[in-house]
């Protein structure tokens, strides 16, 4: 179980592969379509949805503005209630803190409730390197882990799998990880869930240490909140002797009453439910238990320093943007090369990791047609298209010292388009070409206009799949002048 996103190709190449997988395309279209319809229905029930979105965005923005104060407050509240607070600058520090706690307790396995932060830092792999096995207990995470696979959705990590594939994974891989799947396992969802339940129960009852994330951290009371659907979170948080929570520093909300807004926004946006089945809250250490909280930066302060991009830290990981994104729907999550896929991943990864360093990360802001469906769906009003365009400019600026063909083309276009006389001349050239090509062009497009043939690169990127109408003999500008309209 060592699948990793490290070394993933840039988005266009990864997407090309995904697009040719017909099974994946069908699974994704079905799943996102279903969640999209459910979400739209329950969001439609709330009259003041827009006011809630505005309130959610405002709370997050205000909190981020004074993040330092709120974090110190959180540390104080947690410490007062018997928890140990650790600060981690990056993934390596955070993983080392968790591993050392495991070692102090002589633990060689931990159970995990699904946590994006621990996936982000590669905790499972880091623990494995120190001889500690981490067991995922969320059903979809279990499927991904047993299948030696990678998550492809924030909320439904195994969205790319259908139930026949899940049955195969359980039948082939469960035995090696613990309790085997029943011999006569079918692909009925209830049977699959039953097999997972028995398999996981052994792990819950045996494990002495658990690792969690947190959806929210309330500064005033030192309360961590985990929202989930299966009850595995509750098992992980109550049964083991040691609970270690890895929490991104942007998860903070100042007061308990701020939570109210998010507990309304989150379930409707993510699973399309009015309320999520399990909400676990705990403040510090409960009796007989040891509690640790690792407050994780890992690029968050970098994102915070970006005036346009910082709004991405409002994200509550609901995945609504993934489910409405036409690009995600066709390429799936793996193409984004990160545990944060889809539109939010396309901005969060460059913000957390920085632009101009890695081709894969630099390709992400371009993995969007800027259609704006993500902004419309976002419960905390992150203007993802705005941030995408902003990050594209950062990618371009980072490479200005070594200009690519594209930069040269853009510079020439800018020169031509800055002056109507230059544009007029360029159009005359295009018109001449049109007259020539119109004579040779054999194909007539619907409506009667002639089409060009297949173009050489880079025009082929367009003409491989799409006909191109031949340029008109006369531009609008030339017609206007000829008509003497001025």
């Amino acid at each position, binding site marked *: 179980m060592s699948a990793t996103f490290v070394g993933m190709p840039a988005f266009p190449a990864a997407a090309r592969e995904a697009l040719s997988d017909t099974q994946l395309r069908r699974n994704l279209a079905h799943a996102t379509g279903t969640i999209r319809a459910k979400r739209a229905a329950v969001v439609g029930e709330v009259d003041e949805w827009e006011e809630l979105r505005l309130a959610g965005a405002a709370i997050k923005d205000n909190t981020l503005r004074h993040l330092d104060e709120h974090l110190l407050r959180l540390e104080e509240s947690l410490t007062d209630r018997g928890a140990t607070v650790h600060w981690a600058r990056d993934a390596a520090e955070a993983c080392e803190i968790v591993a050392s706690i495991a070692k102090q307790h002589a633990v060689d396995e931990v159970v995990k409730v699904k946590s994006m932060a621990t996936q982000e830092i590669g905790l499972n792999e880091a623990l494995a390197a120190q001889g500690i096995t981490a067991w995922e207990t969320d059903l979809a995470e279990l499927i991904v882990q047993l299948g030696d696979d990678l998550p492809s959705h924030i909320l439904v990590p195994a969205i790319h799998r259908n139930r026949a594939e899940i049955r195969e994974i359980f039948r082939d891989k469960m035995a090696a990880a613990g309790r085997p799947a029943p011999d006569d396992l079918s692909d009925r969802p209830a049977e699959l869930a039953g097999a997972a339940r028995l398999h996981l129960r052994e792990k819950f009852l045996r494990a002495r240490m658990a690792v969690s994330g947190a959806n929210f951290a309330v500064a005033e009371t030192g309360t961590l909140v985990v929202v989930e659907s299966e009850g595995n979170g509750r098992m992980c948080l109550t049964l083991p002797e040691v609970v270690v929570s890895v929490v991104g520093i942007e998860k903070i909300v100042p007061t308990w009453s701020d939570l109210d807004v998010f507990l309304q926004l989150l379930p409707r946006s993510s699973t399309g439910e009015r309320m999520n089945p399990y909400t676990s809250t705990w403040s510090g250490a409960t009796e007989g238990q040891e509690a640790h909280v690792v407050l994780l930066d890992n690029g968050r302060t970098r994102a915070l320093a970006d005036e346009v991009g910082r709004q991405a830290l409002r994200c509550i990981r609901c995945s609504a943007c993934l489910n409405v994104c036409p690009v995600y729907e066709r390429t799936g999550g793996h193409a984004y090369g990160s545990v944060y896929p889809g539109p939010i991943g396309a901005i969060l990864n460059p913000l957390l990791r920085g632009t101009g360093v890695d081709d894969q990360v630099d390709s992400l802001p371009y993995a969007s*047609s800027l259609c704006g469906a993500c902004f419309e769906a976002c419960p905390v009003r992150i203007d993802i298209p705005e941030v995408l365009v902003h990050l594209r400019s950062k990618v371009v600026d980072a490479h200005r010292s070594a200009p690519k063909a594209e930069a040269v083309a853009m510079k020439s276009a800018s020169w031509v*388009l800055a002056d109507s006389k230059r544009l007029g001349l360029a159009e005359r050239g295009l018109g001449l070409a049109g007259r020539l090509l119109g004579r040779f062009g054999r194909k007539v497009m619907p409506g009667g206009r002639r089409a060009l043939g297949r173009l050489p690169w880079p025009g082929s990127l367009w003409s491989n799949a799409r006909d191109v109408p031949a340029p008109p003999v006369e*531009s*609008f500008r030339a*017609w206007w002048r000829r008509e003497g309209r001025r």
Partner: protein
Amino acid sequence: MKVAVQVTCINDAMFPDTGKAVFTLLRRLGVEADFPAAQTCCAQPMVNTGYLDEAVPVVRNFVDAFAGYDAIVTPSGSCAGSVRHQHSIVARRSGDDRLAATVAETSPKVYELTEFLVDVLGVTDVGAYFPHRVTYHPTCHSLRMLGVGDRPLRLLREVRGLDLVELPAADECCGFGGTFAVKNAETSTAMGADKARHVLDTGAEVLVAGDNSCLLHIGGLLSRQRTGVRVMHLAEVLAGTESS
């Protein structure tokens, strides 16, 4: 009211008939509009690809070309959106305060064609005639960036002879997305293929939209697949009369 038409660079160079249709239509409605010949492009291709420095001279040319008009009408939701939402970003980046001030003055005067017809002129029946089965694709920027709502449909419903059929999944992006269409060509065409399939499902003869850039993409796919469905800009449909 002094009205100018921003024909847009793609219409100027590739779809002059759309520009002509806008003038025919406006004249029929009693508006004598100008074509300021100094105009070129709204700079969206540069901005959306991340070349903000390269966008500065183009935005400067735009505000100079359209200075002094009360309304600037454009047959493109995408270009109108770019002017309203992106010109201020480009101006801020340039550090030129005079440019920022001119942009702030010009941007609010830009209207997408259907906004101008419905909101400013107050008409939905423009006296058009187009005896064909038509389906309408609301382009993303018209739909979400501008929020033109059902204005185009209200205009189309008043066109005599026109049989308007609903497009399934109309609000889904066609996959054009400017340079996205070549930077992520395969994903773009996968999205466009689904759009083309929905168009075919309607049995329409003509696909209409308010942006020729999206139509260049969808029309290119429809043509390559030899579907026989033609694409037309909304302005050309609205410009048609029984005598034309």
